[in-house]
């Protein structure tokens, strides 16, 4: 089969003096044309020509040498999440490429725009089990939005243009380009870089149908108890203002998914909290009582819906999404509003009536009061000797004022952080939502800092997850990345232990994890640190961490067997959420 690369014939910049370039140089020229400023990567045999070319581009392209390719791709994800731009990662063939797979899968399910470039063996060696050869294209097909193998340098400008276009447009996602070593070395006549803005087989942006918007508005205007739930689509669509105007005019109580968190300030008067398994009480229970459910840029993940056949059955669902395959995938919609929410929300806002629902909103507040008493207050203001994760987050909120970027790993600390962290600004909550990748936070925080260098970045990590990617302390050391590392250490793989306690008769099977002296480990990397276990030291040590010039590791020893509540048990309906 032949290959077809479709590129619209729109010239952005022609550089007639660059007549002969190598494939490697063409890759880097493409990066410059696409506005890339930071690359995360790790060199190796099959990508050496690109690294050789990079030597001459050091003033224009910052390269961050990571300690493992997984760290590289998570860093690129963190960068993309805080900056709103496309993250870029380099890896060599074989193990370098396979080490990207977790990050690709994570970016795929969390719709993160990435371009990953992998080296590949010479084209004439493909399929021969050459040294460090692996079939990267087939390995990564299920976890990429698009992938392509380049064996001829002349393809590089058009393929890279396509890669950046696909990664960023429509519902974003990771793209992997595998380039054989001969193509990296090959010289060819370079006639400039043309950005891609159309591929005939690819429809990133469905046409907005006004009649559906009108139908949705009518449904909202007739509703007695409408409820808005939103996900990361609001952030990806850069539609935070449009979204806010919509809910403020319509006066509808609003809850967020873990991926949508921070698109709306957490203290917004219409904000009623987080949805899902460890979300807030009110939004979960009242999902099953609202009459119109307006879902914006979210995909009804099973962690949000709980038992699907008992999810919002009484409600008419209006689903706004850019990806048509998400409509009716899990929850049937009465009115689908396909399109970019940056376009659809203003149309909807115009048609909805200015309203308030004081009694309906009060019901959320009533549930919140129950949750305060049963879960929130004991977590944030504990009377036990042991520290809780929640009180650490509370102190962090007080000291940052909600202006920090919070990067979380996966597990109990993630749920506690997302439940209690205060956010004023969008793109502040970076977490592995869909894939639940332990080891995500430390490298993602490095990338997050490069994506938002002016902001404080706090990585909140458990003792288990930290040990999955702690080699990236080396990256922090070498590149002097100012990341605040907050380890919440409960000396257990806490979330699994919680499930074993609740659903497996306390049979604590291999969750009792021992850890090294994290402060000593950090010290080995030249990173200052501190470990505390007393409440009296909490405030001062968090302050010390935040005020420290440069990276800092703070370990807080917390209660060993604390649980995260509320909780929707697996297989239960959202309205069966447990407070204890």
């Amino acid at each position: 089969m032949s290959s077809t690369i479709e590129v619209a014939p729109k010239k952005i910049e022609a550089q007639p003096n660059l007549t002969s370039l190598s494939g490697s140089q063409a890759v880097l020229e493409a990066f410059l044309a696409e506005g890339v400023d930071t690359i995360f990567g790790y060199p190796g045999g099959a990508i050496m020509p690109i690294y050789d070319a990079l030597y001459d581009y050091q003033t224009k392209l910052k390269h961050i040498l990571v300690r493992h390719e997984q760290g590289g791709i998570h860093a690129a994800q963190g960068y993309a999440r805080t900056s709103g731009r496309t993250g870029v990662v380099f890896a060599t063939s074989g193990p370098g490429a396979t080490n990207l797979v977790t990050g690709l899968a994570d970016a795929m399910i969390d719709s993160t725009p990435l371009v990953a470039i992998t080296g590949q063996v010479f084209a004439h060696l493909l399929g021969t089990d050459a040294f460090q050869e692996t079939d990267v294209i087939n390995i990564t097909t299920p976890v990429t939005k698009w992938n392509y193998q380049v064996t001829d340098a002349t393809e590089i400008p058009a393929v890279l243009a396509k890669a950046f276009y696909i990664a960023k447009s429509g519902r974003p996602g990771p793209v992997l380009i595998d380039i054989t070593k001969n193509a990296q070395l090959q010289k060819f006549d370079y006639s400039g870089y043309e950005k891609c803005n159309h591929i005939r087989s690819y429809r990133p942006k469905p046409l907005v149908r006004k009649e559906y918007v009108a139908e949705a508005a009518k449904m909202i205007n007739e509703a007695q108890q409408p409820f808005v739930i939103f996900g990361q689509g609001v952030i990806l669509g850069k539609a935070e203002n449009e979204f806010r105007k919509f809910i403020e005019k319509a006066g509808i109580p609003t809850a967020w998914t873990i991926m949508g968190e921070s698109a709306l300030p957490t203290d917004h008067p219409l904000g009623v909290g987080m949805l899902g398994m460890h979300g807030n009480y009110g939004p979960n229970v009242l999902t099953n009582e609202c009459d119109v459910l307006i879902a914006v840029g979210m995909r009804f993940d099973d962690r949000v819906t709980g038992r699907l056949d008992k999810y919002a059955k009484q409600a008419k669902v209006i689903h706004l999404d850019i990806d048509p395959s998400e409509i009716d995938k899990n929850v049937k919609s009465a009115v689908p509003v396909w399109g970019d929410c940056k376009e659809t929300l203003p149309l909807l806002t115009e048609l909805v009536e200015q309203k308030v629902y004081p009694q309906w909103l009060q019901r959320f507040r009533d549930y919140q009061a129950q949750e305060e008493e049963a879960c929130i207050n004991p977590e944030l203001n504990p009377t036990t000797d042991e520290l809780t994760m929640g009180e650490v987050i509370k102190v962090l909120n007080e000291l940052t004022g909600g202006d920090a970027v919070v990067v979380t790993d996966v597990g109990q600390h993630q749920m506690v952080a997302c439940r209690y962290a205060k956010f004023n600004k969008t793109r502040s909550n970076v977490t592995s939502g869909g894939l639940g990748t332990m080891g995500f936070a430390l490298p993602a925080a490095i990338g997050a800092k490069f994506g938002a260098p002016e902001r404080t970045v706090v990585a909140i990590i458990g003792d288990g997850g930290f040990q999955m990617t702690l080699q990236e302390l080396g990256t922090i050391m070498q590149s002097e990345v100012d990341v605040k590392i907050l380890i919440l250490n409960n000396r257990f793989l806490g979330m699994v232990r919680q499930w074993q306690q609740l659903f497996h008769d306390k049979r604590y099977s291999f969750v009792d994890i021992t850890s090294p002296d994290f402060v000593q480990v950090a010290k080995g990397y030249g990173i200052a640190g501190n470990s505390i276990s007393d409440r009296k030291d909490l405030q001062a040590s968090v302050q010390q961490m935040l005020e420290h010039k440069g990276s800092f590791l703070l370990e807080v020893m917390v209660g060993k067997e604390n649980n995260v509540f509320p909780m929707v048990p697996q297989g239960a309906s959202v309205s069966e959420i447990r407070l204890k």
Partner: protein
Amino acid sequence: MSKQEFTVTVYTENQIGLLNRIAIMFSRRKINIESLNTSPSEVEGIHRFTIVINETEDVVRKLARQIEKQVEVLKAYFNTNEEIVWQELAMYKVPTDTIAEKVKVERLLREHGARAVVIRKDYTVFETTGQREETDKLISVLEPYGLIEFVRSARVAIIKASSGFHEKLKEFEEAEPSEVVVENEFLDKQDEVFTM
């Protein structure tokens, strides 16, 4: 909703690796592909996949949308057997001597719409085109006479209600956004829509 046979027709660019990208949409849901054919389409440069699966309509609809989402896929349709005209080709290799001795070959061919492709001293190859039951029937007829080899092709299918892909392609070639993906079975009347 019960499972039934659906024919999924996918119009794509001609691209290496696309077969895998489409096939894994089925395997990730543990759905067996009963038959898969790739061929050129009525439009030059556009490839056509014809895939047969046994599934519920609900699942097939979701699958078609997820397939359509792939960058190099232009459009995915799904149809029941009533909505398509379909054929498979089958070939049968039998020993010539047995056939010549024991069977009235002419009658056999006539009854099953078959024809002899190759007649050699040692073996004869028959070919027939038709639907599954028809090609299966000839197997049972030929089995007693020492059927040596049998092979059946994938299904090829023409969608009865289709007016071809030339016009659709023009829409695709125009700039974004496009009407093409916003066909909707809830607010539109379903039969007025091509499929989906």
